[in-house]
């Protein structure tokens, strides 16, 4: 079981231009290759090398990817979903990477995508068509009372027929004025919010007079561009809409049938993404007219496999140099390898920064503390059991990817510490258990002291790691200066404070620790500024370093959150319980509401406690712990396979 940063070897590879494709193809199966971007390597600038460029092929692949992606998105809208639980149980399909190409090449994805995209744009068109027809119908609807065909209105000899709208509020005035005419017929066919839709039959003799009246009441003439009668026309449009809907229904059916091809398209998508990655990988290389220059890193324990792959794919026409990566080379990519327990905490390390190649992987160091603190901040047997059962159930029943499993396991481990601390505090959903080692509600002063003691242990451990790294790198003096003196100053100071505050410390011990502290502090002042070149700078640096003792005080106090979060979560839960008991006294309805409030309130508090514990443990890890020894800033190892999106690939 390895727990650390994976050892890397650097390789230099020269191959013929023509072999590049084949090499990359084989290396992608191997996957564990990280290429250095040689464009950025200044030492190669003088050799008159060109950049390998493959833009056209990348653009072509990108276009294909865009097409497949939009087909997948379209089809997944029409897919009949399995229920969440069942889908999770079955999980995604798993295929071997080596099969991916063969499988993808058998799938006629161009045709499928063509069909899907065509059907999809057809659907859009049909939708627009329906909207247009609906608009026509709503234009005709106001005139539906007019039973005569429109063209017949023009056949009158003595009379002129007019259709139009008049503002509603002028109705009375218009009717009054028109009643002065002799041969004019006025009818309101329908009305909407503001206007009346009216029909007028006017004798030609009165035409001028009526027009004047109408003009003064803002009549506006309506032209209807059909010939037959309106009801029939509307029926025709409705028939059209029905046909369009039928077509949409058919197209939808076709799309639903095509969802069978969804998994094939997903395979093609993964394949194309890998092709793209392979193509863009070659942009890291440099070339002369015939030769490609390739540099990069592989895990040291895979050297033989790598050499074999290179040999097989290049027919022995190549030049390969392999050497252990230099410890201080900052280009070395970082790959972490940890035990099952620590691995689930890798995301925490990654979020801060990957380690440099000459550092150590802090994940296994932070993991036990993190989980322990997490448990102390939630600290409830009931919450712990719930979390334990939920995560164990998910791990057992669902088919998850390794990454998802790590995330679930992360909380699975915390649940154990939460149960442990729940037992110590004797708290079950904030009800007091018969056995209680520490009552956090009354003995919080003790809990506070314990929290700070844990903080001291945590910080001492972090300092110890710092010292270990100095010793490992053959700098024992640095270990003494940066860690040893601090141990002395802090330990001496703490014991001295204790002896002043309590009578627990014998006088002799107090005196000794006073001198230990002074030696430590003087040591810090003398050595803290040793990187500076002049005496003044050294002394100032040393004093500044000693001033850092104030930040240690801050660090220790910061651990009071271990007590505070556990306590506030507990108090909120017991406030919920009190409310529930008050409701229970109100009879049957009170009991029903009580149960509901208990479930909702406790779930909310559980969620909040988990969230707080998660982020505050992170803070303790990043600020108080990492601050003592960890720098970070390494680059992640870039694999030669793309991370699958839809299916799992082995």
């Amino acid at each position: 079981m390895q727990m650390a940063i994976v050892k890397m070897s650097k390789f230099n590879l020269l191959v013929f231009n023509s072999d590049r494709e084949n090499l990359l193809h084989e290396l992608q199966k191997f996957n564990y290759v990280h290429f250095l971007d040689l464009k950025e390597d200044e030492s190669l600038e003088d050799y008159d090398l060109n950049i390998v460029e493959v833009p056209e092929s990348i653009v072509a692949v990108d276009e294909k990817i865009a097409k497949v992606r939009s087909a997948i998105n379209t089809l997944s809208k029409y897919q009949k979903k399995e229920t969440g639980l069942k889908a999770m149980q079955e999980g995604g399909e798993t295929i071997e990477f080596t099969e991916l190409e063969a499988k993808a090449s058998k799938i006629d994805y161009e045709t499928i995508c063509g069909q899907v995209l065509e059907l999809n744009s057809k659907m859009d068109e049909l939708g627009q068509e329906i909207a247009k027809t609906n608009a026509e119908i709503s234009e005709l609807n106001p005139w539906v009372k007019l039973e005569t065909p429109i063209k017949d209105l023009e056949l009158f000899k003595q009379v002129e027929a007019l259709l139009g709208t008049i503002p509603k509020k002028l109705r009375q005035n218009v009717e009054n004025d028109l009643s002065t005419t002799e041969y004019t017929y006025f009818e309101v066919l329908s009305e909407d919010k503001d206007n009346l839709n009216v029909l007028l039959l006017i004798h030609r003799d009165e035409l001028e007079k009526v027009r004047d009246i109408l003009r003064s009441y803002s009549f506006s003439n309506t032209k209807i561009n059909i010939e037959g009668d309106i009801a029939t026309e509307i029926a025709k449009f409705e028939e059209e809409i029905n046909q369009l809907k039928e077509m949409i229904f058919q197209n939808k059916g076709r799309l639903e049938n095509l969802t069978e091809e969804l998994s094939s398209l997903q395979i093609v998508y993964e394949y194309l993404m890998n092709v793209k990655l392979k193509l863009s990988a070659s942009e890291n290389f440099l070339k002369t007219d015939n030769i490609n220059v390739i540099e990069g890193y592989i895990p040291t324990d895979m050297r033989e496999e790598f050499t074999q792959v290179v040999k097989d794919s290049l027919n022995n026409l190549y030049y390969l140099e392999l050497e252990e990566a230099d410890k201080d080379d900052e280009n070395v990519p970082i790959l972490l390898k940890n035990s099952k327990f620590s691995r689930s905490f890798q995301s925490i390390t990654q979020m801060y920064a990957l380690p440099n190649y000459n550092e150590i992987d802090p994940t296994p160091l932070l993991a036990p503390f993190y989980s322990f603190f997490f448990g102390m901040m939630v600290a409830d047997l009931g919450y712990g059991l719930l979390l334990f059962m939920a995560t164990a159930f998910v791990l057992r029943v669902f088919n998850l990817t390794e990454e998802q499993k790590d995330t679930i396991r992360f909380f699975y481990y915390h649940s154990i510490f939460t149960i442990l601390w729940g037992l110590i505090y004797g708290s079950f959903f904030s009800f007091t258990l018969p056995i209680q080692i520490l009552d956090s509600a009354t003995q919080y002063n003790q809990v506070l002291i314990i929290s700070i003691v844990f903080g001291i242990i945590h910080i001492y451990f972090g300092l110890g790691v710092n010292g270990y790294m100095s010793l490992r790198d053959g700098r024992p003096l640095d270990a003494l200066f940066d860690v040893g003196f601090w141990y002395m100053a802090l330990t001496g100071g703490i014991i001295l404070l204790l002896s002043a505050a309590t009578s627990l410390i014998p006088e002799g011990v107090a005196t000794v620790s006073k001198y230990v502290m002074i030696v430590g502090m003087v040591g810090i002042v003398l050595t803290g500024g040793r990187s500076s070149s002049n005496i003044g700078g050294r002394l100032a640096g040393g004093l500044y370093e000693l001033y850092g003792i104030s930040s240690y005080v801050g660090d220790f106090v910061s651990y009071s959150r271990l007590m505070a979060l556990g306590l506030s979560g507990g108090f909120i839960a017991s406030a919920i319980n009190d409310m529930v008991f008050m409701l229970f006294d109100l009879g049957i309805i009170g009991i029903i509401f009580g149960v509901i409030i208990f479930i909702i309130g406790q779930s909310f508090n559980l969620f909040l406690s988990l969230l707080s514990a998660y982020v505050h443990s992170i803070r303790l890890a990043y600020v108080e712990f990492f601050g003592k020894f960890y720098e970070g800033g390494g680059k992640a190892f870039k694999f030669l396979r793309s991370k699958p999106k839809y299916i799992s690939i082995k």
Partner: protein
Amino acid sequence: MADFMLNYGGVVMGAFGAALAVLLSGIGSARGVGMVGESSTALMIEQPEKFGKSLVLQLLPGTQGLYGFVIALLALGQLTANMSLSQGMFIFMSCLPIAIGGWTSAVFQGRVAVSGVNLLAKNDEQATKGIIYAVMVETYALLAFVISLILLNAVSF
């Protein structure tokens, strides 16, 4: 008036302290949660899939109100009708750290969380860092909470 203060001043001041602990920290939390809620709502227009993370960001400034609530409950537990004025004043003072510390830290935490929502909108993968920045502010609310708690039980009358 002086008589009234002597007879009932203790319980009034104690209750006033408990009320302030809930009120001020609650005001701060409400403002903080509100600010983050507003900017998260805007985020939902284009990126509804980020609801979960934005909810976490929104909850962060909400905890101060809960700390104030806990302190108020503890203070309420100590109230008696005929407590002395000095005891009531002591409870009142004990409530001040979480009342004022909770109030201001919630508002500032809310502001950091709003920037966190911006980060979430533009770079999903780094959003957890926004959460951690916001948590840094909460440290001071926690310290205020611890001191209020210790004060409440430090002196027995």
